[in-house]
């Protein structure tokens, strides 16, 4: 179908973008970034906003930079930027691995990292990365800037802590330690589809002892999250297949799975345990 009518407001600077948002947000105005989630929902007439503030011309938001311990990803950085490592350490390698599971190449040429975070689909790979690694979201409006922790950002299916007049200007991802290992595993029925379940794990191997263990799940519940009880089972322990199997079982027990016509809760619960085990296997490889 065709999208409904709207007024188009292209911004050229960050200041202009937040000023336009302040003006139009109260009149059903929203941001358009890559458009790769928004335009399909406008075409399906699920979304019909009156005003669109277009940030694609804001060059200052198209940067991804390393700032001390953070990787800072601006609002116009496309998924395709991660086809090559954007950072020399384990984080850069992880993002390059993960990006290939997001949609398809032509969609990655337009869609943005921050747009995925703002869209907050339960099965978004970047949302899983943000939740597991503890990203901080920087929101800007004419009222100023504020930083939102990942744990507070996600508020259920496709809903976030961002106010209507706020722009998600950048996401700050903490860089992984140089000796950190990370693994990611996603299951979907066709290449490019949203995941039915996916897991992201990260840890440091301190002479055979696991440190800084992170286990995140996505696609299974209404939002991605870390599973603290499973992490605690591995923290300070030796890396072994049995220990990982027990932690994976704890993840399966902890989740409250989404259900749809193709996938019932029992299946998703089982699948996420498998995804956790495979993510660990991948991290160790």
């Amino acid at each position, binding site marked *: *179908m*065709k*999208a*409904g*009518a*709207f*007024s*188009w407001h*292209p911004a050229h600077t960050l200041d202009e973008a937040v000023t336009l948002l302040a003006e139009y947000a109260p009149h059903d105005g929203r941001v358009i970034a890559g*458009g*790769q989630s928004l*335009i*399909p929902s*406008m*075409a*399906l007439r699920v979304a019909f906003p*009156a005003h*669109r503030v*277009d940030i*694609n011309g804001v060059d200052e938001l198209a940067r991804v930079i390393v700032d001390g311990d953070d990787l800072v990803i601006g609002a116009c950085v496309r998924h*395709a930027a991660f086809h090559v490592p954007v950072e020399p350490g384990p984080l850069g390698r992880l993002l390059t691995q993960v990006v*290939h599971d997001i949609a*398809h*190449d*032509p*969609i990655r*040429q*337009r869609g943005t990292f921050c747009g995925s975070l703002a869209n907050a689909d339960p099965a978004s790979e970047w949302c899983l990365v943000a939740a597991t690694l503890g990203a901080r979201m920087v929101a800007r409006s004419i009222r100023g800037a504020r930083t939102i922790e990942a744990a507070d950002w996600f508020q259920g299916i496709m809903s976030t802590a961002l106010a209507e007049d706020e722009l998600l200007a950048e996401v700050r991802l903490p860089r992984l330690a140089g000796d950190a290992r990370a693994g990611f595993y996603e299951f979907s029925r066709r*290449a*490019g589809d949203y995941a039915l379940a996916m897991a992201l794990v990260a840890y440091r191997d301190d002479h055979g002892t696991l440190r800084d263990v992170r286990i995140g799940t996505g696609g299974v519940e209404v939002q991605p999250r870390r599973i603290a009880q499973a992490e605690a089972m591995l923290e300070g322990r030796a890396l072994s297949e049995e220990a990982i199997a027990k932690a994976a079982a704890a993840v399966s027990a902890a989740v409250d799975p989404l259900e749809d016509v193709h996938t019932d809760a029992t299946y998703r619960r089982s699948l996420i345990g498998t995804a956790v085990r495979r993510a660990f296997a991948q991290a160790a490889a």
Partner: protein
Amino acid sequence: MNDTLPITLQVNGHAHAIRVEPRKTLSDALRIDCGLTGTNVGCEHGVCGACTVLLDGAPVRSCLMFAVQAQGRALRTVEGLAQGGNLAPLQQAFIDHHALQCGFCTSGFLMLATGMLERNPTIDDASLREVLASNLCRCTGYQNILRAVAHTRDALRAGTVKNVDGAQATATSQVSR
């Protein structure tokens, strides 16, 4: 809100001055306002890839962009592939390998593969499959599309063709009548 805006689209090196509503997709503007109907529209929501065009060299879904967003960008569509009566080597490879049946998906696949091979002429088989999995074809079963694109990549590597598109195409790819 239904007002039209004057814009200029640069398509295959030609300027098209048109007026569009902001809600008009790039695919509709190309087909309806520029008269370039080689770009097909299947699903209109990003799933099939029939509408793939090159935007500053990168393959994109033209149904997932508004035409107003494409101002000042270099667009290429399937109409721009053949040059001077010569089919592009990739187009000839599609014929030679029977990489199309009904042809509805073909312009999208040609633009997808053109963008891919121009970016990475030595792309490996696994990456080639991953990129070509972006688009849907209901007829061919994909194998012949893979063969046609791999053949063109190999010809580029061997130096028997110089460009993916029709520029400096070899004599063997003359349009047959």
